[in-house]
């Protein structure tokens, strides 16, 4: 593949449609999809079912009752729905993406497919989009289950603004899945062995969930002066800790979801006195204000997805096709 892309003729997207359709069909008919569905039921529907039990007792007292289905911490199940998703979405994405490219090498189909009229660009993007669609379908199914269950068991329809916020939540979840799909695909481009790429992606996932919070804390501690003399200093440290935390996609996801599903959320991070002014505690923010609040998180997720995808693209362009 020529390094000088400017000299190439023909659209880089030639053939992307067939690649997308084939990959999508592969995903949807695979055993893996079955496992994913199982995942969704166990991790999603189960906590929701128990939170619904609880919510039925509070009908009428809450303006955002519907959104509480997603956020409430059920008594029987120790993890709320959102936290379960934060944890499970990366796993789903890794499951879909860890062998997207290297399996073509291992099946020796890559050189045959690339000898058809399409650029590597189309192959990579088609695969990514098909994976993302699969993920979106799975999440949408889950979302619909939760929504339907809410309608049935609570017996009252959600308000428009609740639907809008819940839809926003779905979008953020898909973007979050996209980041992890891009990461999984990156490893599938870098490593020829599917086991290695799966291991690396899972390793990174564990790293972000278990080690990174501790590391972020340790780094922040290193900056703590012997004596904190001003509020600014304190806020500065808080912000450092937060900035480090936000390098993890999981943090961006939970912050964005928090602001969307808890309309009372006024700020993500340490609250300054200036932000408190005029704010009635507990008064919900209008939707546009919430969206404004999570804008950096959402762009962060999308940018992360694009950066990781581009990295795999650059590596894939230079890779030798022969197995």
């Amino acid at each position, binding site marked *: *593949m*020529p*390094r000088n892309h400017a*000299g*190439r*003729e*023909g659209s880089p997207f*030639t*053939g992307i*449609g*067939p*690649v997308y*359709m*084939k990959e999508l069909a*592969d995903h949807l008919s695979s055993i893996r999809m079955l496992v994913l569905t199982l995942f969704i039921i166990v991790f999603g529907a189960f906590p929701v079912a128990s939170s619904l039990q609880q919510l039925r007792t509070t009908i009428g007292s809450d303006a955002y009752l519907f959104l509480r289905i997603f956020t409430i911490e059920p008594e029987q199940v120790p993890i709320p729905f959102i936290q379960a998703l934060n944890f499970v979405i990366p796993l789903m994405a890794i499951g879909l993406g860890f062998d997207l490219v290297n399996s073509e090498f291992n*099946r*020796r*189909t890559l*050189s*045959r*497919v*690339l*000898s*058809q*009229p*399409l*650029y590597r660009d189309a192959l990579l993007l088609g695969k990514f989009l098909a994976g993302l669609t699969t993920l979106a379908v799975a999440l949408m199914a889950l979302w619909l289950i939760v929504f339907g269950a809410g309608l049935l068991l609570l017996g009252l329809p959600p308000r428009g603004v609740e639907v809008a916020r819940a839809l926003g939540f779905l979008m953020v979840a898909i973007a979050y899945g996209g980041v992890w799909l891009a990461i999984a695909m990156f490893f599938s481009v870098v490593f020829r062995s599917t086991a290695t790429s799966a291991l690396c992606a899972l390793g990174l996932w564990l790293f972000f969930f278990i080690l990174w919070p501790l590391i972020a804390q340790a780094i922040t501690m290193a900056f703590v002066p012997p004596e904190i003399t001003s509020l600014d200093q304190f806020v500065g440290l808080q912000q450092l800790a937060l900035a480090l935390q936000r390098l993890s996609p999981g943090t961006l996801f939970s912050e964005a979801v928090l602001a969307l599903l808890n309309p009372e959320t006024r700020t993500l991070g340490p609250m300054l006195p200036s932000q408190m002014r005029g704010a009635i505690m507990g008064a919900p923010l209008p939707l546009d204000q919430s969206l404004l609040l999570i804008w950096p998180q959402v762009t962060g997720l999308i940018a992360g997805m694009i950066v990781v995808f581009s990295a795999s693209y650059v590596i894939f362009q230079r890779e*030798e*096709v*022969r*197995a």
Partner: protein
Amino acid sequence: MSDNVIDARGLLKLYGEARVVDAIDLSIRRGEIFGLLGPNGAGKTTTILMMLGLTEISGGSVNVLGFNPVRQPLEVKRRVGYLPDAVGFYDNLTARENLTYTARLLDIPRRETDARIMDALQSVDLAEVADKRVATYSRGMRQRLGIAEIVMKKAEVAILDEPTSGLDPHATFELLEMIRRLKRAGVAVLLSSHLLDRVQSVCDRVALFNKGQIALMGTVVELANQVLGAGHPLLIEASGKDIAGTLGGIAGVRQVVPAGEGAWRVTADHDVRAEVAHRIVAAGGSLTKLSDLQPSLEEVYTRYFQEARHAA
């Protein structure tokens, strides 16, 4: 120029310092079967990949059907069929589904797709198993499915990398027959192989690769003359007194070499078969075999690389 489907000039491939393909000139003519021969690591696959624009070219130029594979890879790949070394298909799909995917990539009109796939599968005797998953296919069947893909593509040029490796003699025979059929359909075929006697039977011209360079190129007879020397080799089996002396006395005979019990190899300037028969019988011997040896590519190959090794 317009008669050539592939034209490589000074084609060069470097991996670091190594000159894997070292400035080769190569032309494939329309409608011929051309064989690329050479030991492992000679650079055959690399040459093929450069022609398809699947690997970067370090220097020189190559022109495939009037297109430049570096700048116009899509045009090249639309017209050239490629059967990679140890071709793979999607095991979870059937032969028909595999070819349908390729057809979609080639943007073959949907209403033509089914007929073209069935025709292609028929031409390689896979029509009965068209709806079986490729996982159940043998090596030979996969190889044939690869040929079917090229047939379906209606390629003008077919590039086959080691198409017969790992096939049993019968499967090899069948595959070579399919390659001949491609040629009859007007397709130019470039193939690389190790099975020399088989290649000899289908190739119009061959190129002998050695360490990234083309050592010899031409028809099998031309190569034999170049490497083994011109002349008519004969194999003679006879019994009687001093056969070797009798043979050596024939005008035009250059060399007599024993080739086992009661057998000799004779190299002569011209066809001396009649004279040989006459002399042996006249000397009271009995002639049991007298055969004209075709120059064999195997011999050319072995001799050439022996000499190359001696020279080194």
